[in-house]
């Protein structure tokens, strides 16, 4: 059992944690998060502009492309706090698209697109397909060479934030191998995007039809790096998901505690009953463990071997922690807990969503068994 992660925390992480904590609390009170559920766009453009102005899109991008030259370790506390406040927007999408360019793009593409992403142009990924397989390399969508263009075909699913995006980076089979292509959304035919109905209503996700879409030859990311880039994105997405879930776990536990401290039955505050008190403590200790895994994964993310192990552990534990805490939150609110009005559902839905994207706890444990046993 070598290659287990270690805890570590940089000054930049500490600074970002502090700033993000107050920013997200201020900008995304739960009433506002709720209002955005019904909004077609799903996020507040003014808040997005502030996020851009804070430079957060560039945190994990090297200085040569106008970024801050830090890493995903420093993005983690920001997303943790966003998750805690259910702050909506395309931050994860753009961050992951930038990672795709860093890991799989040509130098020309990085130079062109990364500074624009940092400046607030939105980019997203189209990696999943109808099969629902978490593997990112078993693909049906294709790219065929047609003169100086590629013509694309097939369908991609779970394309987050696509209608707000300027670019979509899609995975396709090209000459029998997975490849990544960058699609300009402006060039998509009418009806190419369809909003999907998803469990987490704080987010937006789309189906993308590639049939009839052509992209220039320059849109192909470096084919030699495609597999490595997909592996990198898989881990990066799981790290960010773990961060968002850990933040959410803290919030839903706090929300439950609040109710346990105010609701009375049989003349007593319900929090005095151990049937509620002890499971709440169990949820809390799971949260503490998941948070430790998160920050170890963030710290070790770039280490060969260790990064993958720590990240899979973090996602598996975050899934377990948020699912359990939100599940108990519903139960402990009684009839009110069963309503749309109770915030417990927001977190339970979010847990279901994250378990569905890039692998749930059991899937990551299965991968870990191959890595550590």
């Amino acid at each position, binding site marked *: 059992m070598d290659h*287990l992660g270690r805890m*570590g925390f940089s000054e930049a992480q500490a600074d970002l944690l502090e700033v993000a904590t107050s920013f997200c609390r201020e900008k995304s009170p739960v009433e506002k998060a709720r209002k955005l559920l019904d909004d077609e766009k799903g996020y507040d453009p003014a808040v997005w502009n502030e996020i851009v102005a804070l430079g957060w899109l560039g945190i994990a991008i090297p200085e040569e492309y106008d970024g801050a030259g830090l890493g995903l370790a420093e993005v983690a506390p920001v997303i943790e706090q966003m998750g805690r406040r259910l702050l909506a927007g395309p931050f994860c999408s753009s961050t992951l698209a930038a990672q795709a360019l860093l890991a799989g793009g040509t130098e020309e593409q990085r130079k062109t697109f990364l500074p624009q992403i940092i400046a607030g142009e939105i980019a997203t990924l189209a990696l999943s397909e109808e099969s629902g397989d978490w593997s990112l390399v078993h693909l049906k969508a294709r790219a065929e060479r047609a003169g100086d263009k590629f013509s694309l075909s097939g369908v991609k699913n779970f394309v987050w934030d696509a209608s707000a995006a300027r670019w979509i980076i899609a995975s396709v089979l090209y000459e029998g191998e997975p490849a990544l292509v960058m699609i300009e959304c402006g060039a998509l035919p009418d009806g190419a995007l369809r909003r999907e109905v998803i469990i987490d209503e704080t987010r937006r996700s789309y189906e993308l039809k590639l049939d009839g879409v052509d992209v220039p030859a320059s849109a192909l990311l470096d084919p030699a790096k495609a597999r490595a880039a997909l592996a990198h994105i898989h881990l990066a997405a799981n790290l960010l998901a773990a961060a968002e879930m850990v933040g959410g776990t803290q919030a839903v536990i706090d929300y439950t*505690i609040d109710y346990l401290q105010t609701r009375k039955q049989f003349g007593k505050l319900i929090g005095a009953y151990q049937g509620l008190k002890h499971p709440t403590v169990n949820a809390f200790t799971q949260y503490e463990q998941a948070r430790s895994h998160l920050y170890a994964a963030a710290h070790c993310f770039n280490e060969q071997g260790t990064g993958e192990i720590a990240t899979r552990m973090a996602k598996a534990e975050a899934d377990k922690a948020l699912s359990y805490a939100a599940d108990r939150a519903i139960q402990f609110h009684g009839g009110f807990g069963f309503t749309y009005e109770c915030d417990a559902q927001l977190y339970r839905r979010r847990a279901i969503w994250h378990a569905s994207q890039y692998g749930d706890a059991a899937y990551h444990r299965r991968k870990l068994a191959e890595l550590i046993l």
Partner: protein
Amino acid sequence: MKHDGVLMGKVDQQELAEFAKQADAWFAENTPGDPGFMLPLSFLEVGTDQQFEFLRDWQRKVYEAGYLGAAWPTDYGGGGLDQAFQDAATEAMRRHKGPIMLNAIGLNWAGPLLLDMGAEAEKSKHLKNILSAEDIWCQGFSEPDNGSDLGNAQLTAVRDGGDYVLNGSKIWTTLGNYAKYMILLARTNKDAPNKYAGLSFFLAPMTVAGVETHPIRKISGEYGFTQTFFTDARIPAGCLMGEEGQGWLIALRTLEYERGARGGQAGGYIMTPIDVASVVDLAKEMKRDGAPAIEDPLVRDKLVEFIIEGQALDLCDQRGRIAPLVQDRPMALPLSAKLMWSEFAQRLTAFAMSLTGAKGGYYVGEPNAVERGLWTRSYLNSFAATIGGGTSEIQRNIIAEHVLGLPKG
């Protein structure tokens, strides 16, 4: 600037590295091999004189080499070094799988308590002899009728001239039959305004007339604790720690040391560390349907779960030292540690037992038993930690009320 979350302020890193190297060499050379009889898994199951003498000699030897109490003040027999030095020595002890430290209650709760709140005379009298295992200490808190509800303790201490006269009984007294001193919670005032205010704390000698210990056999078949009877036992009034009526306060502080919520312990470890890696090894050796158990997908999933959880405990320990990552509820990790590891150890050892297949039915003494019955014995003894030192249920109450702010039951 990255750092690994360890405060490295005043410690001379070169000196520390040199010390760690010497400690490593010392334990490599001096750690005893198999003594030819079964050693207890923890300080809780010291049941024979042979075990006792062996462990007492070992503790003395470690202390004299400078690897126990390295961070206690030199005035009281300690090494006067930074805690990082003691941690390095403990690490070396663990690496070489040294036997446990015997005088657990002295080293880990009575000692730090004395350093923290003791009078000068008490510190000079007791601390060095705790380190050298000259004086074994025990803890007289629980009573037959008052365990979790410790504040209701009823053993009485009545002032009579220059003495206190003790009457009543304590139970589950670990090391009771070997101890020379007891940290004792007793009732000095039956008419106090509430049950807590009538309690006082004593550093009581066990060697006076009227103190009797009756060993109690444990679930595992081993011995290690006693019921302790006090019948008109006279102890000098100077044994009172602090003042009359301060007993509850001092007892609470003691429990913080016992549960590891507060630092200052002398070092070493008092329980054989349980280690997921050895359960993984066990899964490689044992067979299921003719193949190594580790090839069974369900076994693999369980093992991974245990590895993740064991790793979480280590990481929580590390995170506890990084202030910005514990600021929302600073007491959460210290107050949760005992609950988390004791429950984990219980589930892990139960799983290890099941891995041994039919041989899970063997026990200590059976030559065919896997690792001399280690896993079954470990599982049975794991309840020591989920019950002793405050049960898991009580720990959950404490976390709920003191960390999460939930109402009292």
